[in-house]
């Protein structure tokens, strides 16, 4: 069997070599089937371009909230006719809310994060020449690209983009007369998302097949790095839940365009009764959140996987409780599909269902808590190399705890009654999935930049500035926000001036906005560092972080098929950091790590997997 595998590998490699010479600009940089190039395409389109738009939108909203009704040149510049005399219009505020949510959740943190790191790391860390299907992988990216283009085009249609919130609950999203954004803007939103889902499914199926079939010799499932476990399980959740969103989107399209009544009934609007009869918006909510909640973990699990890897490497210690970590990922994945109803406690569904969902929701806190404790224990008695990636990983654990804990409030149906849809929720999910996932994303970019850009490294000092300013501002924005929510301020309000009871919160709003603006500026440091380093970054050592995983055994200069010779064979798990023999000496003298492809040494015991 082993010789057969080796032959196949060599053959595959030969084939790759032939291809290599035929690369044109188009096949290398545009319609590339190489997973490393596709990863970079996702990073640049998904994270940098879409991320820039999404974050910029949030800053415009924050400015409106802090200084309601005031005129700003930036409003005039970017919003044009939707900001007459530089004063933001109420409809465009809702459009910004909607598009910020859509872009950040789906385009940046789903496609950008998974797309970049699943593509980059799955083949490299499991020891494969490429994805199972390079072609499908390419199609997946280009569908994502088309979805992004359509979503951006929707920003420019005459009546404005979708504005019904990123959850696009009907009837608001279904009836063009309910708000201007529910016209062509919503049609484009739905089309874009349908294509996005197709892209996501193709990508996910590819990841799953690759992880199951293409692991190198010796790479058993229990030797997989936790990154791969996270990407693998994320892909499975995606395959299970995204089709349900597609069905919801299709039904909504039918309600909108073909007069069906899946989600609509008994509507009187703008002086006339509509024909819809018998549908229910609550059905839509069920379908949406059947994806929507797993989606949170689709966003979060890859970030946690990246953190596991980065933290262990930089702590020079094995990740604590590898098996418990895998079990937690699986438990979270399973539970994530049966908790969606906690978004709907007060939607009008049967209160008994609310009880069930409270129960399952609070259960999911258990594996999450296990993960947090394991991260903390991983730091204990480590030799922490505080690289920017490590700081972002520590930051992730911090915001994951802070944001996760308030989930205990929101997951409790009784307590949810009064904080539902207030800024308490906004603070909660921004910390636990927004900021945490972004930290995971940044940790990954700092850590694996040399793999993506042929050995070049990001500037660490700019990385430190980026991290510290971001970390301070993230808490500065979202910690006080909990209080705003508990004061009863609803989310998605264009301004809070219609209620004197919120007047005294104006100062907090300004404070949060100032922090948000500084945080936004700090991201420019990252962008500058990123672009500069692509061209002028210092080439570092082949394995700069002294890491155990297979990607660091590849040559810095990219080759098709990843390894110029045979694929390395794996002999141990990925976390033999600071492992010592019976005499307290490192397994490999003077080296505190033992990469996965190093065979067991004499008298060495294989532990923990």
């Amino acid at each position: 069997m082993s010789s057969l595998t080796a032959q196949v590998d060599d053959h595959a490699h030969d084939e790759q070599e032939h291809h290599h010479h035929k690369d044109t600009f188009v096949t290398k940089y545009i319609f590339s089937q190489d997973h490393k190039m596709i990863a970079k395409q996702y990073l640049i389109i998904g994270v940098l371009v879409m991320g820039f738009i999404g974050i910029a939108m949030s800053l415009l909203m924050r400015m409106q909230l802090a200084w309601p009704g005031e005129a700003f040149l930036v409003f005039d510049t970017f919003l044009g006719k939707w900001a007459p005399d530089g004063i933001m219009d109420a409809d465009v505020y809702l459009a910004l809310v909607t598009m910020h949510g859509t872009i950040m959740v789906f385009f940046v943190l789903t496609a950008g994060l998974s797309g970049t790191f699943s593509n980059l790391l799955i083949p490299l860390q499991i020891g494969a020449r490429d994805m199972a299907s390079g072609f499908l992988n390419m199609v997946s990216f280009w569908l994502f690209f088309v979805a992004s283009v359509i979503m951006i085009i929707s920003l420019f249609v005459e009546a404005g983009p979708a504005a019904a919130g990123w959850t696009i609950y009907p009837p608001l999203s279904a009836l063009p007369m309910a708000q201007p954004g529910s016209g062509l803007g919503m049609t484009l939103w739905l089309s874009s998302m349908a294509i996005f889902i197709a892209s996501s499914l193709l990508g996910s199926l590819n990841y799953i097949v690759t992880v199951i079939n293409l692991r190198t010799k010796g790479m058993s499932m229990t030797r997989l790095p936790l990154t791969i476990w996270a990407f693998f399980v994320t892909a499975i959740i995606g395959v299970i839940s995204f089709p349900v969103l597609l069905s919801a989107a299709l039904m909504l399209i039918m309600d909108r365009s073909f007069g069906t009544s899946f989600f609509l009934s008994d509507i009187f609007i703008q002086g006339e009764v509509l024909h819809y009869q018998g549908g229910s918006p609550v059905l839509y909510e069920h379908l949406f959140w059947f994806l929507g909640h797993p989606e949170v973990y689709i966003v979060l699990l890859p970030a946690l996987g990246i953190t596991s890897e980065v933290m262990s490497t930089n702590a020079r210690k094995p990740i604590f409780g590898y098996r418990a970590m895998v079990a937690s990922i699986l438990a979270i994945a399973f539970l994530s599909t049966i908790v969606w109803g906690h978004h709907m406690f007060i939607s009008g569904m049967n209160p008994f269902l609310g009880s069930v969902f409270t129960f399952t929701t609070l259960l999911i806190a258990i594996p999450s808590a296990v993960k947090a404790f394991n991260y903390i224990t991983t730091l204990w008695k480590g030799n922490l190399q505080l690289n920017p990636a490590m700081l972002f990983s520590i930051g992730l654990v911090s915001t994951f705890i802070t944001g996760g804990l308030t989930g205990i409030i929101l997951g409790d149906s009784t307590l949810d009654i009064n904080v539902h849809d207030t800024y308490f929720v906004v603070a909660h999910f921004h910390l636990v999935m927004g900021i945490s996932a972004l930290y995971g994303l940044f940790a990954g970019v700092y850590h694996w930049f040399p793999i993506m850009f042929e050995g070049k490294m990001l500037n660490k000092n700019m990385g430190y500035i980026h991290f510290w300013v971001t970390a301070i501002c993230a808490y500065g924005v979202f910690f006080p926000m909990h209080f705003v929510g508990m004061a009863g301020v609803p989310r998605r309000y264009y301004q809070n001036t219609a209620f004197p009871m919120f007047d005294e919160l104006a100062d907090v709003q300004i404070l949060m906005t100032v922090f948000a603006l500084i945080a936004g500026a700090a991201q420019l440091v990252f962008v500058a560092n990123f672009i500069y380093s692509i061209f002028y970054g210092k080439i570092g050592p082949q394995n700069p972080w002294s890491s155990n995983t297979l990607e660091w055994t590849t040559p810095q200069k990219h080759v098709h098929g990843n390894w110029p010779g045979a694929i390395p064979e794996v002999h141990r798990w990925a976390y033999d950091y600071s492992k010592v023999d019976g005499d307290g000496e490192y397994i490999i003298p003077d080296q505190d790590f033992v990469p996965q492809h190093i065979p067991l040494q004499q008298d060495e015991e294989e532990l923990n997997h």
Partner: protein
Amino acid sequence: MSTLLILVVLVLVAIAVWQLTKIFELSQVKKVNTQIATDKDNKYNGYMLFAFLVFIYGITIFSFAKYAKFLLPTAGSEHGAEVDNLMLVSMIIIFIVQTITQALLYYFGYKYKGEKGKKALFYADNDRLEFIWTIIPVIVLAGLILWGLYTWTNIMDINDEDDPLIVELYAQQFNWTARYAGDDNVLGGANVRLIDIDRVNVMGLDEADSYAFDDVIVKELHLPVGRKVNFKMRSQDVLHSAYMPHFRAQMNCVPGMTTEFSFTPIYTTEEMRQNSDVVDKVKRTNIIRAEKSLRTGEVLDPWEFDYILLCNKICGRSHYNMQMKIIVETEEEYTKWISEQTTFAETVFKDDEQPTFNTVDDVSMTE
């Protein structure tokens, strides 16, 4: 407050400058130009991690000191006290866990900052530890779940015991309407298909249903103190959510179905205005409003506390201003008020000229 803001900004600028000088210093002293953390990086960032822990505690204490007074005043409903107790206990648990775990995280980050030659401990697993921190959340969460579910079941048990007042809350873009069931305390049948604007049947009541005749349609919600109210909620166009934060009450209004919520108000508006937290809040708010009036020239009336119903589900352009005043009053005041209102029959079956509706609140939307 603005000085405080400036201070915060100054601190941030100071940190940025400090970091910049540090970079400069590092790049001068260290000729080895590596992008991998050196012992010096580890040391500085280790200290920063500790400082950041102080910052997190700092912003927590600051927020509590400055913002705790913004929280909603004591609950105006019977079940509200239970919700608040559960909230308090959950919050205490959360804060204990938050304080401990953040301390461990950042303290370890600081304590074990890397040094060349230092040996990390190969510590891959410990079943007992894993068991402990699985079982502790299980127990704590089990307690919270049981308590939460018990309270939830009680709140959501909407029944006709204790002679509840039946009130319909009717939502539309972008205002609220309330309908009282009248002397028979039974709401007449209604459907949006029966809406007849010309006859001022704006809620689509069934004109053939005698239960509807004595229904009272109003734009301001009056509730007698101490009597259970069962709300039936409807929406005529898109989703809305009837959010009454002072009563710890909220329920979505869904077109095509009727949703329900029930609570018993325990303080009249007058009593609530005497509550010391509310008195302070009103005082603070009116100072802010007076200052703002001076600054902008736009005259803001002094505010007087009132219970309020807000829309809390995105519903379109004027979602941010979809509200209705709620007045909780004594039984006598309520009886007097309701007897002065015209009934549906009086409004609709009056054949002569355009019938007038009950007082329309001036806060309702114009847009």
